């Protein structure tokens, strides 16, 4: 039996994804309005203050590319975990309303409760959005779980429709917020619901990479239990999985990572849906392999999407969320067809 990944780094699929990622990273940093020379790469180690193209490389392009990879990896992991949790290849935090729950809570903080921000110590204000987004994402996750079980137990269509309803409710609140917003608030809100990585900085990359590291370590420990969940909830319990604890762990990771991604980068859809699917086709359904590879695939997808979004109409920049939705929408239809074919129409 060869399903246990003894040394994941040496597995050809992993190696392929990593090589593609490094290549994409190099290409992404080369593209843009300003030409970057190979010498600029060493400028940061020379000790002199960075200027011109070296500044562009080290303070703009590199953090942005790394942010795209980190957020993409987080979205890919969230998608894979959500699909495992709901035993459904069509589940995704975006489709199920988890990310719009995060967006809804953050929009409330940005607009309706903007006045209340004065009560928060200035040092903590940067964390206001992420914390609000986390609460929003968690609330939708928990509501989704309860409602889908209660309204339509075991039904995949019921789950997706519950997600659709929650999505509609939360987006209505976002809409209400933008209606009530001042011009300035509206600008940041609109920009943010479209999804963008332009907030990139080394500090942000550090925060997200740390969260991603912890979450992916924990997710890796849950991978085999997640495999057992594919047998069904009852059977997973029978083989010895503590299902309620597993579910709580999965919900916590998904809510945390979705919220962090949404809080700083806005709504970026379809990465979480497509990344695990791309991986599962080639590498099989074993979650121990799907989880790390879905992270790699998500990182690559978002890096490519963002690079195209910021270079296709230089010097203007298309919000990357629009771009992923444009590509991801048809991708989802394609996926739907494949799933329907496999399950003989029981999707």
């Amino acid at each position, binding site marked *: 039996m060869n399903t246990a990944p003894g040394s994941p780094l040496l597995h050809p699929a992993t190696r392929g994804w990593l090589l593609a990622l490094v290549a994409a990273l190099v290409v992404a940093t080369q593209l843009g309005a300003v030409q970057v020379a190979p010498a600029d790469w060493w400028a940061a180690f020379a000790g002199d203050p960075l200027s011109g193209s070296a500044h562009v490389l080290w303070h703009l392009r590199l953090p942005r590319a790394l942010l795209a990879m980190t957020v993409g990896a987080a979205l890919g992991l969230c998608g894979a975990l959500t699909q495992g949790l709901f035993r459904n290849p069509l589940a995704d935090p975006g489709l199920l309303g988890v990310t719009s729950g995060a967006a809804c809570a953050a929009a409330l903080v940005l607009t309706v409760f903007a006045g209340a921000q004065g009560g928060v110590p200035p040092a903590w204000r940067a964390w206001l959005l992420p914390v609000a987004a986390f609460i929003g994402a968690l609330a939708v996750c928990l509501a989704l779980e309860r409602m889908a079980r209660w309204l339509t137990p075991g039904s995949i269509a019921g789950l997706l429709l519950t997600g659709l309803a929650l999505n509609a409710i939360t987006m209505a609140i976002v809409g209400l917020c933008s209606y009530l917003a001042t011009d300035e608030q509206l600008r940041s809100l609109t920009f943010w619901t479209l999804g963008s990585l332009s907030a990139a900085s080394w500090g942000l990359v550090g925060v997200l990479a740390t969260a991603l590291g912890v979450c992916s370590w924990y997710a890796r420990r849950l991978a*085999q239990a997640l495999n057992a969940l*594919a047998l069904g909830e009852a*059977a997973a*319990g029978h083989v010895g*999985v503590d299902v309620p604890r597993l579910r709580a762990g999965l919900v916590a990771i998904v809510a945390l990572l979705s919220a962090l991604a949404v809080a700083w980068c806005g709504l970026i859809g379809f990465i979480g849906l497509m990344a695990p699917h791309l991986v599962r086709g080639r590498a099989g*359904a074993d979650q121990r392999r799907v989880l790390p590879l879905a992270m790699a695939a998500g990182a690559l997808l978002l890096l490519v999407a963002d690079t195209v979004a910021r270079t296709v109409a230089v010097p203007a920049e298309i919000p990357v969320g629009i771009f992923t939705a444009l590509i991801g929408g048809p991708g989802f239809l394609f996926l739907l067809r494949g799933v329907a074919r496999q399950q003989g129409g029981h999707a």
Partner: protein
Amino acid sequence: MNRDEWNQALLGMEGAVVQLPGRRFGPFDLAVHAGERIAILGPSGAGKSTLLKLMAGEHAAHAGTVRLDGQPLATRRAAALARRRAVLPQSHGVAFGMPVDLVVALGRIAREPDPAQPAVVAQALAAAQATHLAGRRFDTLSGGEQARVQLARVFAQLWDAHGALLLVDEPLSALDPGLQWALMDALQRFTRERQHALVAVLHDINQALAGFDRLWLLHQGQLQADLPPNAQAVPALERLYGISLRCVVDANADPSGRLAVLPVRAPSPATLATQPMSEAA
């Protein structure tokens, strides 16, 4: 049944009740000993699967207790329980395109890290006559092939246990007769070799008569009888299902003189209702 017997039992139920919306099952006072083979029979809706889920720990006892190895099920952790009892469910869908080997290996999840896993998986597949399915995707298999793989998963779970409990819920009812008997034989062999107790919900009366030591007859959520599978069980079975049974003893097929029965249509309210109503009018 006295307290000593309960304490020695592998699984003991004392006044155990399952309460589901609008229905109450039990109270059940039953004991299962290591090596015993028990068939649960009864008409649809009698509570066979519910009783099995109570024994599995899937339904909590609303009143009374269920003990495995003398400890209440409710106090035992899922992993500890999984090393002492396995469950083969009625339906067995597996999400995603899981490979067969992984499905079987998941039976060993409570034992991880488990260096014996690859060997046990291979042996369990062989015992379930599914070696040729290794390497395939579970969702591409036929119903019969899926049943074999799920059987192998359950075998893997209790492969190196002794005197454990195996609960089986009509896993064979959708299969062709040849495969039904082949898999039942594999199941019997597996449990006999390890002194596991086997408790199976069955539809086929003859399977119950041929391979089991005790019959639990269930009717409307209550245990109606707990009988050995001999000629005395036949009237009880007739009453249970509302049919007539003709006894057949085939000494060639089974030298132990085990009983087999042939269901015969009996005048029951159901058949009367289908007759023309002209006389009544």
